[in-house]
Every structure is written in C-alpha cells, then in structure tokens.
C-alpha cells in the first residue's frame, strides 16, 4: 500500500473530488487530504516531527478530511496542491498594480516601482504557503518524494469578463511566466509537475469545462464555488492531475497495470 499526504488550499477540492472518482482504479493507494482555506496553510508548524495547524479552523479541516490533526512523517509521498504557487497570483498582482514598463495612465492600475514589484512577487511566490509547506515537509522527512502542483491556470472564459481582460496581455503573461520559471528553477528537493497538457487551452488557460461545477472544501460540507469563478476546477480536472502525478511516480491504474503485466 502506498500512502500519500496531499496538502493544499481550496484547490485541493478538485484533487479530492477527482480522487473520489478514480480511487477504484488505484486499490494500492490511500490519500489523506490536509486542507486549509486560502493562505491559512501558511500557518503551520512542526512539533515533535509532525506538521500541525496553528489555527482551530484549519485543525477542524484536517480532522474532517484527513482524519488526523497533523501530518505524519511516514507517508510514502507528499503532494503540495496550489497554495499560491503559480501564474494566477502573479497575474493578479498586475490586475491592480503595474511597474512603469506596463503602466498606462488611463487603465486605472496603481503605479509601483520595480523594487516593490520584486518584493511583492517574492511575498507571493517565494514566501507562498506552498513553499512554506515544502520547507515544513522537508523538515519532517528528507526521504519521501514531494510533488508540487501549481494553482490551475484560469478558465479560458476569464477573457470574456471585464475584470479578467488583463489576461489577454501577452507581455504581462510572458513576464509572469519568466518570473515563475525562475522561481521553479530555484526550488530544491521537490518534483514540480506542471498543469496536465490535456487540461490546457493554449499556453495560459484551462479548458472551460474543467471550471464547471467546481467545489470548495469546507469542514464537513462541500459547497459550489461562486458563479463564474474561473480559478477553481472540478473533479475531472483533479482526476487529470492525479493521473499525471501517479504516472510520474510510477504508479499505474490497476487495469493498465494488469494489462501491462499480462
């Protein structure tokens, strides 16, 4: 039996619901989901070789979905899902604040210096809950593989909303991608797994149908995302992500494994 700890924020919902759909084909795997909303996974700490939440709200969610109030050091693999690492937080910064090279007086964004842009990006990415979780996991185990899955790219339908129109800015997208690539290059002791190709619409977006009927995890219940939320994905997306990761670590679905062994 392979035991996996899947740590994440709201994006863990897609993975959890995807897992519910495909777990029958992976009888030799168990996954415990440790989730906290938004940036609350930044508030974790290591005590006695285990990772504990520092807030009661997150502790409740750990208990509700993983059945444990802390993350143990003896899992066979650790997945880090979303938690602010990805293109979306970097682009969201440009929705409201722009450095001189991307600033136009008419578009309403606040002008910031390159120096503050650097600080802001570091806060968003290098000090994201995902990177914090990676550090904590590496504190409790140096052996098990850790796989990082970024925040999903937004649904292509974001381009149809006035608030999301800045996602059509090719220069902004390229600038954020360059920064993200550099940040990924600086990660150590982790396997970075980009969003599955099969879910992509072009280079920077997710196919629209993966954002339909998405859910947010809450303690003891599951509720739909806000109408038209382009940032959260559904169970089908989660299943894609898991299939890709399992393949990456060499675990195949049971039918495929049987076929290959035959």
């Amino acid at each position: 039996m392979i035991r996996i700890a899947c740590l994440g924020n709201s994006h863990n919902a897609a993975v959890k619901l995807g897992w519910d759909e495909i777990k029958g084909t992976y009888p030799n795997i168990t996954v415990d989901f440790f989730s906290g909303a938004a940036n609350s996974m930044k508030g974790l700490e290591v005590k006695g070789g285990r990772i504990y939440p520092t807030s009661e709200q997150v502790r409740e969610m750990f208990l509700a979905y993983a059945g444990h109030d802390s993350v143990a050091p003896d899992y066979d693999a650790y997945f880090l899902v979303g938690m602010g690492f990805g293109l979306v937080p970097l682009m969201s910064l440009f929705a409201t604040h722009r450095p001189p090279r991307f600033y136009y007086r008419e578009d309403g964004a606040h002008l910031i210096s390159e120096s503050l842009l650097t600080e802001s990006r570091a806060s968003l990415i290098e000090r994201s809950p995902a990177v914090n979780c990676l550090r904590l996991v590496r504190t409790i185990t140096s052996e098990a593989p850790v796989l990082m899955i970024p925040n999903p790219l937004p649904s292509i339908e974001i381009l149809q909303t006035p608030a999301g129109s800045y996602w059509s800015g090719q220069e902004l997208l390229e600038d954020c991608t360059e920064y993200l690539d550099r940040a990924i290059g600086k990660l150590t002791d982790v396997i970075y797994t980009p969003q599955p190709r099969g879910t992509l619409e072009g280079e920077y977006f997710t196919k629209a149908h993966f954002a339909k009927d998405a859910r947010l995890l809450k303690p003891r219940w599951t509720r739909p995302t806000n109408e038209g939320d382009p940032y959260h994905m559904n169970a089908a997306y989660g299943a894609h992500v898991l299939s890709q990761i399992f393949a990456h670590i060499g675990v195949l679905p049971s039918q495929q494994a049987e076929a290959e062994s035959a």
Partner: protein
Amino acid sequence: MLPYVGLPARQFWKTGVQPFSSDTIQEIYSPKWPIDGLRIATAGSCFAQEIARAMRARRYNVLDVEPKPPGIPEKIANQYGYGLYSARHGNIYTARHLLQLTREALGLLEISPSLYVLENGGRYYDAFRPKVEPNGLSSAEEVIEQRHDHLKRFRSLLSECDLFIFTLGLTEAWFHKDTQIVYQIAPALTSGAYDPNQNEFRNLRFSEIRSDMLEFRDLAKTINPGMRFLLTVSPVPLTATALPQHVLVSTVRSKSVLRAVAGELSETYDDIDYFPSFELLSTPFLGNGFFEDNKRTVRRSGVEAVMRSFFDAHAGIKPTQVELPSEAKTEEEVVCEDALLEAFAPR
C-alpha cells in the same frame, strides 16, 4: 447664585482631573457629531498613523485609495508608505504641506520637477514624500509619473471621504526660497545636500496655519461640499529645532500654536471638531507614564488610552471592548521622518 453651581463634575479640576490619569479620565471629549458609517480619510504627522490604525482595527470605514499590492506583508507595505494613511503621501507635518498637496491634486498648483525630484547615489526621490520608496526610483521620470498617479488618488480621496481627520504636527518647516514650496522635512535629510541659497527655514505662525487650514477646507469643499473635519494635535515633541533656542521652548511654542489653531477652528465652524489627544498625553496633570524613557515616543499604553477616550466618546458611555491587533507596532514601525534629525544630535 454662582454660575458654577450645578455644573457637571468634569468642569471642576477637583472632580474632573485630580482623581484621574490619562487612561481613566472621563468625558474629556464631546463629539460634535457621530462618525459611524462615515467614509474616513486620515492624514497628518506620524501620530496620525496610530489613529488610522486604531480606527481600522475597530472596523471604521477608513478609506485607502492607494492600497498595497496583494500578498505583501504589512510591515514591508508600511516601509513603502502603504497602509499608513488613506493615501500614500507619508507624513504631513504642517498645514501648509496639506494645503500645497491639495492645491496640486486639484490642479491649482503645478510644481516644477526640479523642485521636488531629488537625486542621491543614482536613485531618485520625491521630496514631498521621500520615504515611500526606500530604495529610490530609477529615473526622474518615474518620480514624476508616480507623483502624477498619487495626486490623482489624493484627489479621489478628497471627493470620496465624509470625514477628514488631520493631526497637526509641526510649525517649523523648510521652503524653497523663490517659490515658497514647502518640503516634508529638511531637504538635506533626503538629498544629502542643503543649499542655503535655495532653501529657507520658517516657523509658521498662528495666522498662517489658521489661514492654511481654512483654505484647505474651502478647496476640499469645492469638490466635496459635505466633508467634515476632525483635528488633533500630535503630542510628540520636536526631535530638533532649527531655531537658536532650546528644543523644549520650540516644542511648547509649536504645540501651543497648533492647539490654538485647532481650538479656534473647532469653536468657529460646525463642520470642524477637535479631539484632545494632546491634552491627554502632553500635560503633566494626568501623569507622565505614557512616554518612553526618551520622553518623546508615546508608549503603546498611551496610544490605547487616547484612542479609548475617543471611541468611548463615540460609543456613548459604555467602553468599547475591542482589542487592538496583537502585533503592536514598535517605535521603529511607526514611520517618522523627523526622527532622522536625531541622527544629528550631539553624542
């Protein structure tokens, strides 16, 4: 019968002051009008940061027309001038500076960049708010563009707010000689060079400050006729005086003038109120336990006592029970440019 017979206890020294300290005194402030639900702007000397912070902690609607970028920690944001006031102008120590900023924002005053773009070590700064970019900017053009953006936001603040809270801080100020443009602090503290041919020092007088505040009020009301004003006087003493006299004499002169202006305005105009934070902290009658050992920095407990008086007065009689955030700011975290002057004090 004596006209004093039957007056409330607070009107007699024996019952209004003698039994109390700054944190127990009662009924020291009677607000002219309620502020619940108002859209509030805050500005002024560094003590005004405490007012903004306390009001935000109590969920008052303190406007922020220049919000920090997403994700950035508050401490770093503060270093870049975000979250201190309703706009990113840094500290405004004098009424003249507030008026000048307002005239600029309303397009009534155009200041040549040569008067405010400072260069130091290959980096460029805005002399009217030199600390909002701790590392400076890469070009003079960027300073100009940032100033343009800031003025646009400040103008929107003036049109949006219902209540403008201003803390009067100093009377001593530095000017550009020919144009009488006022700077935030002594020019040498930001550019590293002080030119006596270009800059001059002046200690603003009662009549000038009163006139500046009234002109500010008139201008603000041209775009926002319903705006009201709440004045306070910073209890923080001067770090240094440019006058050839003892700094304590300059401090008392400065604060007395500012207090008199605030009193004059609030007694004359229905839309101007005065909150006596200065009386609570800077007179000897309520104890002197609210300053740090340097006798200048107001202790956290002092700030809380002052703000409690303010909120209690606005809540009616019952004290409010809201806790301030646990991460109380240290002196270093309250951004005070005039503290730079201390670096020049004799060792």
